[in-house]
């Protein structure tokens, strides 16, 4: 029992991991700056969203020099002349550093350091484009050069103020960049930034508030609401908070001593985590005015939410706390995984086909729900194998109960996947007159469906025991991964800049290796002993 406590402490210490150390003055500045409206990439958003996106793009970080993104970018733009001399442009490929004749052994460079090699950089970008035009995949060096080029452009636009569209014109139609502001507005803005530069916090907060009201007087009411919601979303960091809480709940259920009080605390934390998780999704829906399945990151968060929801429902209906424990751990792991994968987490929506279409929304949400339910089945499969391997599931009854829960989740998942796939056909037929076109994504959805169909048939006709079912639930999920992720990133020929060999795929490979090792441990060794 005592050995479990350090593990719990380790889990809890994760919460301190990213808590930003902020003084009261910084906090006040951040709150005032966060809600300033800005137009970026064709949409109006909060300054905080803009700053986070900019820092994520340029430095691949959410904070820099111990400053949160908002403050860091605010610091930069209040000293515009210094932007080009800041070492914050990330370049992590040694080969490219060498090719551009940059100083080795660093990951961050200034604009001025890279600028002399701009000709060479543009050459790589051009050859990458030529390859894409010829339907070939650019080399890793060329891909990184493209990224670096985008970073350079972003920094330059920030330095000369063209990307700072902080104020709409008089009609509220077009947002003006720093250079085209009226003299009066430019002076107001300068006063605000100077106040920040000189550390006059109270002045800055007052001027920022005035500036915001001035901007809002020229825009639609939705801008006030949207910027407020975005600030709340960033303040809450709902998905970060919920995975931490899910881990704590898992610890309470499975690691800590099985006391009644501990269980109750665990349940309370789990509910809190789920509420936070739900709140995050709702906030995203409100901010984006669209269902929460518009990009890969959102689909992971939503899949995860369905996973937890079905675990909660099953636990309530069948009175099984094992469900909650597995659900909590799976949710935490999926969310951590979502944080590890290189994905766009921003609040931007750039997918025109997802434009408020009823059938498409239902279709995607149903499919992603099925992934969630399958994910739960996969988690239950792991639990089954671990307990069996550890000799803690010896009686036939507990094996049957566990198998029944796996089977039921697989059934629900298959039903959802089947309906979702047909709904996709309905959408395709309503949109372009073709119910089924053997597109790789729909073909893989069918392959996954067929795979689970085999499991269901074998299990229904009693040709599959509990352990085989547990293994099948894990293998079946590999098909889900292929449909969900693999079709876009592995099969996609040269359409996406990241595929083989870059960040995204490597995490999937680690998962596959871990899973293979796990299955060897769980069944391979077992067979020898049994």
């Amino acid at each position, binding site marked *: 029992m005592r050995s479990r406590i350090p593990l719990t402490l380790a889990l809890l210490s994760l919460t301190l991991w990213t808590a930003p150390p902020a003084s009261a003055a910084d906090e006040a500045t951040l709150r005032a700056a966060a809600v300033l409206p800005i*137009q970026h990439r*064709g949409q109006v958003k909060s300054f905080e969203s803009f700053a986070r996106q900019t820092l994520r793009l340029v430095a691949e970080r959410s904070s820099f020099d111990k400053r949160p993104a908002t403050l860091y970018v605010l610091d930069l733009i209040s000293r515009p002349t210094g932007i080009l001399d800041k070492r914050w442009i990330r370049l992590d490929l040694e080969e490219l550093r060498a090719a551009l004749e940059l100083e080795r052994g660093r990951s961050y460079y200034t604009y001025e350091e890279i600028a002399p090699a701009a000709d060479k950089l543009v*050459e790589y970008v*051009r050859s990458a484009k030529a390859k894409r035009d*010829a*339907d*070939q995949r650019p080399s890793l060096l060329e891909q990184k050069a493209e990224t670096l080029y985008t970073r350079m452009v972003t920094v330059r636009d920030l330095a000369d103020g063209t990307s700072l569209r902080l104020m709409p014109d008089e009609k509220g139609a*077009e947002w003006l960049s720093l250079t085209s502001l009226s003299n009066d507005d430019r002076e107001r803005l300068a006063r605000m930034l100077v106040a920040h530069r000189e550390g006059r916090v109270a002045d800055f907060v007052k001027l920022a508030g005035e500036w915001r009201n001035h901007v809002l007087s020229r825009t639609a009411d939705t801008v006030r609401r949207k910027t407020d919601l975005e600030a709340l979303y960033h303040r809450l960091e709902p998905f970060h908070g919920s995975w931490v809480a899910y881990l704590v709940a898992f610890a309470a259920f499975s690691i800590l001593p099985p006391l009644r009080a501990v269980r109750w605390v665990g349940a309370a934390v789990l509910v809190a985590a789920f509420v936070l998780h739900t709140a995050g999704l709702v906030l995203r829906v409100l901010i984006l005015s669209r269902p929460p399945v518009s990009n890969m990151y959102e689909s992971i968060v939503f899949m995860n939410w369905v996973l937890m929801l079905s675990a909660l429902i099953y636990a309530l209906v069948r009175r099984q706390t094992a469900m909650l424990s597995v659900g909590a751990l799976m949710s935490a792991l999926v969310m951590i995984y979502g944080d590890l994968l290189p994905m766009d987490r921003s609040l931007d929506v750039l997918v*025109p086909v997802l*434009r408020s*279409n009823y059938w498409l929304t239902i279709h995607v949400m149903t499919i992603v729900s099925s992934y969630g339910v399958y994910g739960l089945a996969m988690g239950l499969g792991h639990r089954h194998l671990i307990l069996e391997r550890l000799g803690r599931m010896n009686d036939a009854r507990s094996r049957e109960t566990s198998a029944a829960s796996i089977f039921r989740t697989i*059934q*629900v998942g*298959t*039903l959802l996947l*089947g*309906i979702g796939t*047909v709904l996709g*056909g*309905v959408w395709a*037929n*309503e*949109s*372009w*007159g*073709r*119910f*089924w076109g*053997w597109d*790789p994504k729909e*073909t*893989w959805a*069918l*392959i996954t469906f*067929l*795979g689970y*169909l*085999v499991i269901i*048939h*074998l299990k*229904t*006709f*009693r*040709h599959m025991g509990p352990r085989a079912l547990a293994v099948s639930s894990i293998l079946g999920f590999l098909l889900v991964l292929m449909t969900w992720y693999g*079709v876009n990133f592995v*099969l*996609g*020929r040269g359409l996406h800049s990241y595929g083989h060999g870059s960040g995204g795929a490597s995490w999937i490979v680690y998962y596959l290796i871990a899973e293979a090792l796990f299955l060897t441990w769980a069944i391979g060794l077992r067979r020898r002993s049994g």
Partner: protein
Amino acid sequence: MKLLRILGSLWTAVAIIGTLAVMLTVSTLIESHYGTPVAQRWVYRAGWFDVFLALIAVNIICSTLTRWPFKVRHTGFIVTHIGILMVLTGSLLTRLVGVEGQILLYEGEARDRIQTSDLEVVLHRHGSAVASFRLPQAGSRRPFDLSKLSAGLGARMVAYTDHAREETRITEGGPEAPANAALEVRLKSERAGFDGRFQLVENHPNDPHADEIDMGPALIGLARGLPAEPVAAGAESVAPQLIVRSRADGSSVSIDLDTPAAETPVSAGVIRNVRFMPDARVSADNQLVNAGEAYNNPAVFFELVSPDGSVTPVFRFHRFPEFDSSHGRAVRAKDLEVEFRLPGGTATAAPRSGPSLFFHTDGDAWIYVSSSSRGSARGEVRPGESTPTGWMDFAFTVERTFSRAKVQRHITPAAGSGSPAAELEVLRGERQLWQGWVPEAGSVEFTDGPDRYTLGLRRVPHRLPFGLKLKDFRKIDYPGSAEAMAYESDVVLEDPSTSTVIHKTISMNKPLDYAGWRIFQSSFAPDTGQGEVSIFTVAKNPGITLIYSGSVVLFTGVVLVFFVPPLSSLPSNARNRS
């Protein structure tokens, strides 16, 4: 009975489902490596795939029949399997009698034919009939009977490629060959990272524009006849002149632009009110004004008074001869060819404003003239010698010249890009008349004695029972970008057989339904100067009702099996085994 049990057994079902899953996996890998058309042809649209789907149907029917006599507990099972059969039947119906194709309409245009994705070979005997046949499956050696065109004529597909590359090979013909100038030139620029070879042909059998290549910013061309020596500066005329030539009778007059006569008679009427602007600009209120005396943008304005008294205002620009202000208004003004003669010797009728490189020949000698904003240069063509063009650091090297060029097209399969092509063999009885590649875009010709034939490859057209006309196309972009947010088309559908006329706006997800046909907004093409183009998908999907209702039945059955135990008991044999 035993066969029924085997065909309907669980293990057959599992084997079929598993095989299908593996086959589809392989097929997506094929698609990833060899492209969509290959996967479609080898798997999804292949005949054996239909057979496989039929096998699934057989398995389902047999397994259902083995449950006879049905009991209440079989309900879920039977409902599910009936649903699958309905979906399969619907798909088969769509595959067999469904039609899907594209229709491309310019604004104002009407059509009643769609292009399907299937390819067909069209063989045309000149002065006679046309025959066509659908391109067969790859590997099929069965000849097509074309005796409709000529007795005993047949054709056979030898090979097929989705991506063909066309090359033109030029050879020098013998002394009896007709005069046909051609040259191969290489253009290089270090700074622009450009290195390309071009072929220019005076008379290309398939491409009437092979004597000019528009590289975007620059134009390369070939012209017959050596150019006149440039006028030495100030030698001939100091005053700028306008030469007005009549296209109708070839007569020409010259007008002194500094002191124009009040009226100058030409064959199309009388020219008056001549105004010359050495540096024409468009003013804020959209008027053409002169900004100075430097020849930055020489332009002339005059009025053409026709014999019937009507007056046509005419603007002509030295730099933009293709710009014709009188377009559409007066045919007579178009009959006039206007040429500027400006002091300084640089001015003849400039072919165009941008940089250009022209090769002139009289059959023996070759002269190049390269011009750019900084002036023009000319000289004798020396094959193999690199010569600067005057535009950036571009230099050209003429590699070969031909005076009696023979042009042959070579079509070869290529990886990646290009359009489809089929290699065909035309036979009379057993004797081969012709063999070669036929591209989708363009056609090839061959002769058999006195008969001339043209072979082409095209998408099989399908005639619709109605006509579709595009009235207006609109595209709305995301603010501040060129990315389309939405697009829609105003169309008119007319069915003469029922005298139906429907006016409707078609947009994404808002198709037009008519008599079993659905017309969808699928895409658009950017305006290239001839108006906007809207692309529609037109489909008849007769199985869709069966597929929809079958899906509902199927999932009702699945819900019964999973969640209503009394309607989903196991078959007795399975129960016994456990």
